[in-house]
């Protein structure tokens, strides 16, 4: 291996990159823009659900209950229809997501010491809204009941359980804290793989790949020369994107910076390597494109970035271990949210390193075998 030739190859890559400002912009600028945009989306919490209250009772109790809903922070009362029938169009068009129906005679039931039913309607076509919305609504009603009991003097005397429910690591359960780190990784992955997958194909199509291999340039030198500039750019990208993510969204950082950087660096290597591998085995740009999609869709869906792995069927869960992003997410979420250190995350980091090693070995083999075709 000749250091001189490697430097020459790196010089060549940079010279070409210089002439393609769009590419550099795609690599550095666009991820930042995407991060900011999507950050807002993934971080949005389910709150201020648009709610309609149908108060058919018009009593002290019904007004008290309605106030509780309104002041909870979870529900925003946007409509007060006069009958239940009016709810249908509102829900159908998605103008409201939750409806509370207080039937006539509620106060009377309460006064008589009977149970009064309160109707809660949730929009099931949005599963998170329905799960969370009904949960919050039930809680509010529970609290109301407790208040009633306390007022009656019962609860104070009775034995019971007082549960202190504490959420650890992410007390506000603000999705920001787990989604932003995940988003950083996802954005890096997409941009790096997209660019690398085209890198070699371009040279194969123009014939310069063939030309280079007739010269004393060796396969390994070529790969290193190709990778280094992109790895450098990717590192830059990683630092910029991570910094923006953390600062802009004020993501609390509980862990060790070192762990995050090492994890991201390893993940970045895997992405570059995978893109390069695709580029090496594809004959045309279109093939490279399709291969990319074939890899990225399952990655997005099965890595746990959006859809929790714990919710996946047992048959599928082992498959998620084939995806590098899965482990990168564990490292990032662990470091950001739980403050996990190297010791706790060692398995994931080692696996990421393993992925990188396997992919690069495959790349070298692919280069040696396919250059002439």
């Amino acid at each position, binding site marked *: 291996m000749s250091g001189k030739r490697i430097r020459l190859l790196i010089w060549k890559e940079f010279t070409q990159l210089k002439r393609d400002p769009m590419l550099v912009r795609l690599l550095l600028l666009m991820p930042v823009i995407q991060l900011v945009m999507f950050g807002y989306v993934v971080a949005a919490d389910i709150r201020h659900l648009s709610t309609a209250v149908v108060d058919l009772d018009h009593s002290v109790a019904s007004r008290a209950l309605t106030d509780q809903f309104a002041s909870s922070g979870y529900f925003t009362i946007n409509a007060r229809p006069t009958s239940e029938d009016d709810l249908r169009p509102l*829900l159908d068009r998605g103008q409201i997501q939750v409806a509370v129906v207080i039937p006539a005679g509620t106060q009377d039931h309460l006064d008589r010491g009977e149970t009064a039913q309160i109707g809660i309607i949730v929009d099931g076509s949005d*599963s998170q809204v329905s799960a969370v919305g009904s949960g919050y609504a039930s809680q509010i*009603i529970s609290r109301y009941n407790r208040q009633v009991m306390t007022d009656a003097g019962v609860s104070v005397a009775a034995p019971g*359980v007082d549960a202190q429910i504490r959420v650890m690591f992410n007390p506000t359960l603000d999705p920001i804290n787990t989604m932003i780190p995940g988003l950083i990784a996802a954005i890096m992955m997409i941009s790096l793989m997209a660019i690398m997958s085209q890198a070699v194909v371009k040279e194969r199509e123009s014939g310069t790949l063939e030309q280079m291999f007739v010269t004393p340039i060796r396969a390994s030198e070529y790969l290193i020369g190709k990778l280094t500039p992109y790895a450098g750019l990717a590192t830059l990208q990683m630092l910029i994107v991570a910094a923006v993510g953390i600062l802009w969204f004020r993501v609390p950082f509980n862990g060790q910076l070192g762990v995050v950087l090492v994890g991201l660096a390893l993940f970045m290597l895997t992405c570059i390597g995978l893109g390069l591998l695709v580029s090496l085995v594809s004959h045309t740009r279109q093939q490279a494109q399709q291969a990319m999609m074939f890899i990225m869709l*399952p990655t997005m869906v099965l890595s746990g970035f959006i859809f929790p792995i714990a919710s996946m069927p047992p048959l599928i869960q082992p498959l998620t271990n084939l995806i590098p992003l899965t482990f990168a997410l564990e490292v990032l979420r662990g470091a950001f949210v739980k403050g996990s250190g190297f010791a706790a995350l060692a398995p994931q980091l080692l696996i990421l390193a393993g992925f990188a090693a396997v992919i690069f070995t495959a790349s070298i083999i692919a280069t040696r075998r396919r250059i002439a075709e």
Partner: protein
Amino acid sequence: MKASLTRIGAVTNKEFKHLLRDVRTLAAVVLLPVIQLLLFAYAISFDVDNVPTMVIDYDKTPASSEYVRAYDASSFFKVVAHGDTLNQVDTAFDANTARVAVVIPAGFGETIAAGDKAQVAVLIDGSEPNSAKISQAYSVALNQLYDQSMTKSWAASQGLDLSGIGALEPRVRTWYNPERNSTIFLIPGLMAVIIAIVTVQQTAVTLVRERALGTEEQLLVSPMRRTELMVGKLLPWTLIAFIDVVMVILLGMAVFGVPLRGTPLVLALGSALFVFASLGMGLLISAVAPSAETANIMALMIAFLPSFLLSGLAFPLDQIPVVLQWFSGIFPARYMVTISRGVFLKGSGFAELWPELLTLAGYALVMVLVAARLYGRKARA
């Protein structure tokens, strides 16, 4: 007009021939979305249950055991470990072997026997907000119920008449998706996203291919008007993608039991328009991109994340800053997801969904016109 149609027909024919010769691409375009839908629809869900729970019982009395049994009985919690010390919770959370930990302090039974409220700690791993939220809600519910039942039995044993105290009881009705099966919620959206991603990619490549092969010049010189060229190019793909959509819909219904409650015609029309619009977007990218390489990269980046994140598939769009909401309107996937969910689950028809249909139609129109405008400008430059 007739000449126009003939020319469009000629281009369509040519594109079809290209396609049919390229079996690999054809297979990819037709089969892949179907396979992916099957796989992903099976895999994804937001439903949470059998949450691994660790119990640390410092008390070890009948009272504490009875309390623990409440968790055992719940289908939501799954007691997987009994620990001895608090440190084990940290380890379990770190290793993700438990997501919830119930810690019963010593003296639990005594306190209850004395007639007081005994404290219990429930720790929830918040690093996975989705399940954490739901776990939190269920813990609250479980404990409230337990507390209330304790109160009731105490009251009964005291001979107290609780009947004077009224209570409200929530009756929850979930519209459109009574079993709260998140898969049913996700599949209509997933369909739209998969198609969006696949279609934008495809067309981004075709125009650049022409440019590369040099046939672009030929076409520009001919009497073919650019709009006709665009339309001709899009039609075969539209047809194929539409076939895809149909297959995907049928599979969704047959395999996953997604109900179709609304007007199928709206769905069909929406799908066709959506496919056309997505393809148009791809066309626009390829007309604008300086090189094949950039076209590919742009298509990938523009089709991918936005389809997942800005379409309303998994993340609600009404809580985000208004600016972003408008921005999400740029992506056709958003409208398709609304239409899809509307028709499948909400039983919607034209009355409810006409805004989205109109938008998609307008979208498709604009895309084709703009792409036609820009195409060839590059060539002349």
